[in-house]
């Protein structure tokens, strides 16, 4: 059998971390079982308020050894409730990776048997959701200095969704053109996807004359 992390140890580690995280104020952490394909997996899903987010991030990095920021994304809920009009979702991972030791001049690779991992060494998956109230400029605290991997994730989230990250150094457009008008964030829900039917395509085959239907307007 292959050497993979067992579900039981993963569940134990997830419960341990979630109970520890729940003690912080403004943080609700539960273990949710995700099922995709054939094998279930347990992840720590955390609901956090935007003012407690910074402290939660620091404690995750320092106390729980969450060393990897996988993804940061935002969702715009215009028709959602007024206290959850925006949502920022973080996906973290606890990898437990350290530099391999150098013994008598040779690097000794760290080859752990994943099926034998226990306790804090178990790789874990954390999902943090931060709900933001209805506002014109949603913002949360940046974790760029804690996880460098969060840097471009936050850039992209601001670029596409328009959620600003306080304390982010060097925020700029990454996927949109640099001359994109200020305040245009295409993944906000007021921008509808346009469909060119074939007459429109063939009137202007190369699309030179084609303009966004909401061009020039400030969104």
């Amino acid at each position, binding site marked *: 059998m292959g050497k993979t992390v067992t579900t039981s140890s993963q569940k134990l580690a997830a419960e341990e971390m979630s109970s520890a995280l729940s003690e912080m104020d403004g943080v609700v952490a539960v273990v949710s079982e995700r099922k995709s394909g054939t094998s279930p997996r347990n992840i720590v899903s955390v609901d956090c308020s935007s003012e407690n987010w910074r402290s939660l991030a620091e404690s995750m990095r320092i106390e729980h050894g969450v060393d990897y920021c996988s993804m940061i994304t935002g969702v715009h809920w215009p028709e959602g409730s007024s206290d959850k009009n925006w949502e920022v979702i973080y996906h973290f991972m606890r990898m437990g990776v350290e530099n391999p030791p150098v013994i008598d*001049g*040779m*690097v000794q690779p760290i080859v752990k048997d994943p099926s034998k991992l226990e306790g804090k060494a178990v790789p874990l998956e954390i999902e943090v959701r931060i709900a933001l109230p209805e506002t014109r400029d949603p913002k949360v605290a940046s974790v760029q200095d804690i996880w460098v991997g969060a840097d471009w994730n936050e850039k992209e989230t601001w670029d596409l969704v328009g959620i600003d990250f306080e304390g982010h150094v060097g925020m700029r457009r990454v996927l949109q053109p640099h001359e994109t008008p200020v305040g245009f964030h295409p993944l906000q829900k007021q921008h509808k996807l346009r*469909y060119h039917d*074939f007459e429109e*395509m*063939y009137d202007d*085959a190369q699309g030179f004359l084609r303009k966004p239907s909401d061009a020039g307007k400030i969104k």
Partner: protein
Amino acid sequence: MSYHPHGTPSFRNLVVRPMWITLKTALRTVPFLGKLKFLKSGYHAQPADMMDSETSRRVGASHPSAEQKFSADRETSQLMPFVERPVTVMYPYERLDDLEPWLFVPGNYNGRIGVIWETCTACKQCVRACPNDCLHMTSEVRVNVLDTAEEGDEWHGFGGEVEVGGLAAMPRDDFHEIEEQHDLVKDHTSAPQQYEFAEVIDITGDVATVNWLNGSGEQDVDLSSIKPAEEDIVSGRIDLGRCMFCGLCMEACPFESFFMTNEYDGMSGFSREDLWMDADRTRVLPSVHKERVDMELAKRAKKEKSKRERKATKAEA
């Protein structure tokens, strides 16, 4: 240079090994010499059976890959066993579907879209399934699948009748020769029309006066020689500029009518308008997917039969 635990640069490796490997590769393509054992080790250009015995017994000899030998790297030549060659396929002079025909089975390979008009019911499932709206409906003259059943066929007689003012179709007698010569993949023309369509003007006894749609004027034909035809909405008017050949339309079709053919070229143009393909271009002959068409015919004829029986019983009651 930093100390590296393995792959240490050595004077020996400066030229010898890489140059020997490239020379080996070149020698492999030389006649007679390329067959030597120390040049080809293991699977290099070893012909292998396409299917294991169990599978070939199950699928039978009709399967395209039955009784076929192949070489994993396309190097083996059964014609001149001593001649070796590089693995390049000189398209268009050589074609991959000649080399590995089992890759291009119609319905398995996602080629250009093809529709069997006879069985299409314009349910628009394919149009709905298309991710980027490249399919459209159009109305064409066609023969319903129920009318394709020949005399004496099990499912004959469940189709419509030839009526005055309606359309009729007469099978072309030279159709089989045309079908023999027509190769969907290699000559990029629309599939040959199986019928000559006409408008029925008058029916007296078993002689029908028809006016051919191709403009050859009126003519009296035997009623038994023509089939009823109709002008229906069929699917498959395709915008190739948008199609990404995902095959979702084929899977969405509930009537065995929509196919991805194995044609993979002749789909280019100098403007986007050229990429607009009419349904005439996407027509697929029923004989290509005979068994599926027969299946569909049986299904619908059964339904028609039961309906008629119910009507009959209702009439009695």
